[in-house]
């Protein structure tokens, strides 16, 4: 195994000065990285990623990859919970066990999955529940993600519903639990197991995926198969899935309760610094938009057009519109939406802005989905740092 020391072998990508650029799409990646002086690391099968933690690995996607509609596999973020992650899988030996309150117990090979069930494909945003946690005020403990714990991937695999029906659900099935190959470092640490209510598990779009962007899953993203719950936070998207259990009561183990819960309030939030009276498992993603270009700190020329562009998505509903402000939210204009490739994908948007006078400007973008869900101007707070979707200001200078 390779062994190296952070201060010697890791590096920071920084640039000394911002470049003056005003043509769309020509902000260099380094400019985006410049506002983010975290360490970049190279993990197997991945590109240079921002290091949050090394064991288990939590790696954030550098934001310039979000210029693309589809996030390249090697740039998709990585988030494991327990230390002993699978680093080697023999697909001859690997089986997906399906059992519990079912007519029969199945041990499906990767070939079984591909041969016995219909293949489906769609593009979906995966996003860590704690994406944006580092922006919470007051700060909360946990993975200190900025905006890079997400990505947009075209997943292919089979319907969970088809697998469950093949096993045959018995009367009294209440939930389905999902376990992966990862193991804790100590027996006292709870194994990472998640569950879905039976009605959710039987929805058409829940997938057991064996391909990402037309390729086998990367090991760090869940090879050989992972669960896809499109529209919901990726805590449910169990990686290296190895066991599906149909159960007759609510699953109440650690990673469902007390972990990964949000306040049972309409906003999923509470007064900053306070504790919720009642919590529920985190579920659908909130609506978000993000300005990718120009990056914060960009210096623009007066009288030159600049394309303000970015992405927007919500928890399973199409984005209806994105509005953009160049004056700190005083006035707004509709952005032009890019190609719609499905309700679980993010959509690209752009707005042409021509600043005339020199000065400091604050850009904002705000998305609304087809059922009217949008984004708050103040960050909504909860104790675990979930659901972040504030309208984020991007300060630029025209000179």
């Amino acid at each position, binding site marked *: 195994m390779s062994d190296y020391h952070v201060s010697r072998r890791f590096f920071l990508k920084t640039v000394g000065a911002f470049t003056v650029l005003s043509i769309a799409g020509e902000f260099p990646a380094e400019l985006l990285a410049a506002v983010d002086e975290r360490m970049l690391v190279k993990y*197997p099968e991945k590109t240079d990623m921002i*290091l949050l*933690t*090394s064991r288990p690995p939590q790696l954030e996607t550098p934001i310039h990859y979000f210029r693309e509609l589809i996030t390249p596999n090697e740039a998709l973020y990585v988030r494991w919970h327990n230390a002993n992650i699978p*680093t080697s899988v023999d697909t*001859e030996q690997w089986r997906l066990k399906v059992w519990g309150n079912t007519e029969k117990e199945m041990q499906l090979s990767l070939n079984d999955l591909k041969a016995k069930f219909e293949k489906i494909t769609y593009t979906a945003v995966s996003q860590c529940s704690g994406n944006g946690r580092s922006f919470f005020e007051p700060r909360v403990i946990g993975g200190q993600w900025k905006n890079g714990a997400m990505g947009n991937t075209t997943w292919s695999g089979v319907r969970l519903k088809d697998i469950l029906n093949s096993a045959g659900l018995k009367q009294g099935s209440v939930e389905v639990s999902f376990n992966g190959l990862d193991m804790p*470092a*100590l027996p006292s640490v709870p194994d990472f197991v998640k569950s879905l209510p039976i009605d959710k598990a039987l929805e058409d779009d829940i997938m057991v995926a064996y391909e990402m962007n037309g390729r086998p899953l990367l090991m760090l993203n869940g090879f050989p198969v992972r669960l896809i719950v499109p529209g919901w936070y990726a805590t449910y998207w169990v990686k290296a899935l190895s066991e599906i259990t149909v159960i007759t009561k609510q699953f109440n183990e650690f990673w469902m309760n007390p972990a990964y819960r949000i306040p049972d309030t309409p906003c999923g939030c509470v007064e900053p610094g306070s504790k919720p009276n009642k919590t529920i498992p985190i579920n659908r993603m909130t609506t978000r938009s993000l300005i990718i270009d120009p990056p914060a700190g960009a210096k623009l020329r007066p009288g030159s057009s600049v394309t303000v562009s970015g992405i927007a998505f919500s928890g399973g509903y199409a984005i209806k519109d994105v509005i953009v402000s160049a004056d700190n939210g005083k006035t707004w204009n509709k952005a032009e939406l890019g190609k719609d490739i499905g309700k679980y994908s993010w959509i690209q948007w752009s707005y042409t802005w021509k600043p005339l006078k020199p000065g400091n400007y604050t850009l904002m973008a705000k998305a609304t989905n087809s059922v009217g869900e949008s984004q708050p101007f103040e960050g909504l707070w909860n104790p675990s740092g979930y659901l972040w979707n504030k309208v984020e200001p991007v300060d630029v200078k025209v000179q």
Partner: protein
Amino acid sequence: MKRAMIAVITMLMALLFGTAYAQDAASQASSPEGTTRSITIPSVRIELKEGEGRVKTETYCNICHSVDYITMQPKFPRSQWTATVNKMIKTYGAPIPPEDAGTIISYLSALYGTGN
């Protein structure tokens, strides 16, 4: 006694990781036809700031996770570090005796805290 405890934990870690890597090697060897996919995770050593309790903090915390779990956090008050260390012991079963827990909490509060 405390040194012995640290030695035991170090051995335990070696056992845990040693086993994992031995399994890797075994599965590769048993699958010459190429049905095995393997990666080797780089071993990243993050060093904590020098201070009283640093060795204990690194030793115990590293049993389950790398100490960048600590270094990535913003500065928290002692109450947060106390709650976090207690969570590691009570929820995750970290084998930290009470006197060492106190040392670790004081170290984290002093070196990675707000100082109150």
